[in-house]
């Protein structure tokens, strides 16, 4: 065990002795996160532009529009149907909500009213807007049902009662408001800095691990491996030492990048214990991938070429560079076959949905399954002679 620790500490010293390591491990991912994350960032200025087309022109449609405006998570403007379509076609707006005529009648008759929400495929907050519309509709339905029942029993004018109830519902800040806050966070985090930060951290940790696992190939090429095998160090100690060094290097990189993104970009990573487990499983998977590639090639040059090709292509597939919402369904399905997807899925669960350890069991399990396959292939192909 002493020799394994000696190997691990020596490899740590070797990597952190090179100035270029700092650039690759910390400088590049922070820069990439800033550039790519910054493109999607923008606070209130980044609120989506949504047009509302009111074809109903009733008190209830006005109430619905007021409710949407009150949410303050999108810029709402009013246009007619033709203008809305034109602006959307010219990509001047993110989308439009069309309230079909007969909204009030259908609500009164307890039927589903016609509301259409058209948005661009790249708009990742669409599900949240849909949720808001549904919630607003729910308020209106509660109001209309209550006013009908009240006017039937008291004989008061239904319209007056309805307006009164709806205005009170609109001004209420109860549980619905709490849900809105959560949803607005989701839009901000998923699209912006957290996703890019997590993605580029994973990508650059993978590149570092690729270089780190390349030390075995390098050792074979330079004769160091020959000398190591001539010392009274067992294969188990040697492998353990190398694996420990890769794990420590990866954790140092991951930890520092997470801290930088926390304090520089305000990224909230979520539950600490769950993050430790998730990051560890991502690291194990990445080490496994590095050894897998090292086992398939003969030189460090080959490893760099094939390894980077694998990393870049799987990062594209896994949603590191751009949100998966913008890719076709088939690509979304393919994404599930690359480890990065599950890493990001885990981070989204913790950072966005407030998940805990139990919520990342699936991503962690799948990452460990990847690890097992990679390690088995990689380790069995390491030649000790």
């Amino acid at each position: 065990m002493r020799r394994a620790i000696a190997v691990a500490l020596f490899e740590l010293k070797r990597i952190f002795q090179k100035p270029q390591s700092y650039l690759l491990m910390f400088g590049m991912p922070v820069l990439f996160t800033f550039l790519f994350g910054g493109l999607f960032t923008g606070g209130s200025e980044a609120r989506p532009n949504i047009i509302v087309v009111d074809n109903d022109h009733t008190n209830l449609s006005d109430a619905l529009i007021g409710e949407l405006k009150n949410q303050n998570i999108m810029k709402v403007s009013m246009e007619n149907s033709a203008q809305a379509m034109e602006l959307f076609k010219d990509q001047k707006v993110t989308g439009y909500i069309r309230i079909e005529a007969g909204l009030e009648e259908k609500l009164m008759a307890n039927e589903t009213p016609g509301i259409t929400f058209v948005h661009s495929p790249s708009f990742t907050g669409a599900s949240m807007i849909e949720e808001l519309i549904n919630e607003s509709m729910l308020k209106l339905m509660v109001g209309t049902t209550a006013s009908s029942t009240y006017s039937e029993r008291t004989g008061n004018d239904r319209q007056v009662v309805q307006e009164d109830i709806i205005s009170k519902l609109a001004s209420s800040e109860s549980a619905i408001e709490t849900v809105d806050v959560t949803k607005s966070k989701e839009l901000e985090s998923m699209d912006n800095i957290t996703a890019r930060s997590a993605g580029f951290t994973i990508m650059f940790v993978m590149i570092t691990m690729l270089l780190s696992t390349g030390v075995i190939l390098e050792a074979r090429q330079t004769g160091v491996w020959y000398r190591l095998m001539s010392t009274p160090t067992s294969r188990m100690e040697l492998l353990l030492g190398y694996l420990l060094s890769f794990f420590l290097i990866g954790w140092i990189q991951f930890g520092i990048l997470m801290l930088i993104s926390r304090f520089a970009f305000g990224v909230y990573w979520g539950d600490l214990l769950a993050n430790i487990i998730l990051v560890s499983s991502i690291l194990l998977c990445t080490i496994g991938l590095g050894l897998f590639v090292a086992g398939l090639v003969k030189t460090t040059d080959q490893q760099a070429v094939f390894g980077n090709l694998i990393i870049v292509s799987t990062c594209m597939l896994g949603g590191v560079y751009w949100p998966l919402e913008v890719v076709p369904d088939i690509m979304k399905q393919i994404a599930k076959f690359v480890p990065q997807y599950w890493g990001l899925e885990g981070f989204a669960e913790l950072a966005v949905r407030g998940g805990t350890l139990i919520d990342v069991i699936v991503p962690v399990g799948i990452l460990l399954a990847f690890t097992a396959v990679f390690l088995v292939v990689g380790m069995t192909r390491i030649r000790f002679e």
Partner: protein
Amino acid sequence: MLEVKDLKKSYGKKAVVKNVSFTIEKGESFGLLGPNGAGKSTTISMICGLIPYDHGEVLVSNHSVKKSPMLIKQKIGVVPQEIALYPTMSAKDNLLFWGKMYGLTGSVAKKRAEEVLEFVGLKDRAKDRIETFSGGMKRRINIGAALMHEPELLIMDEPTVGIDPQSRNHILETVKRLNEKGMTIIYTSHYMEEVEYLCNRVGIIDDGEVIALGSQAELCNRLAGGSVIQLIVENKSDEAIDAIKQLENVSQILHTDETNQLEVFVKNPHDRLGEIVSTAVHQGMKIVSVDIKEPNLETLFLQLTGRSLRD
């Protein structure tokens, strides 16, 4: 100290080591001489326990390499052919690391690293990175790394490849001093003069087989023809070669069709030179140059294999 018995190793159908046997006494300096690809490195890799042997046995201090590899590795220091060091780390860091791989800890490793740096003459470069060293200095640290744990047996696989004469002399002197201190040494090389300088006993290996084994004196006495007269000629003919072969004291003539060179094995070469040259001229050959090589390991190898050590 070391006993190698009937060692065999094959890769697929190709036998690279065939029934190699020799013994080395404690404190001896043993040279394993042979051309590139003769099987020297494979043999020493099997002695070190780095590759398994197909047949035979290797005993170090009566312990089997197969049965007790870790015990044996602790007794052996290996100097590989390559510069097996970490170029971006300092000389001292390298030595400390290799010391730890041999089980040295803390202050013991540090003290030993200082001693080794002093021994190889690089104490003033202790903190410099290996990549800034000359080829000769790298080779010296390469040897130093194998000395960290003060091994009983030092195995050196062509430790002077690719360095300047001055550095080579420094390394040879270092090895000589180690042997004088009582360290047992196996020195493999295809440089005959290095083995002649360093080694008490020599094994000549070719095509995976030990073709000669003994002290240098014993081996040179085996030379049936004594010395070699090397002739560079023009108009070489079989008749002329046959005529020289008939002369008194000429035991063997080596030549190839591709070159104009004749290697004439002969006793008392200085006495026989005139007769050999005149016979050659008489037979129509034109003499371009003449050289007399005294009996040595090179001429023995030439006689045994018909090839030069550095072919």
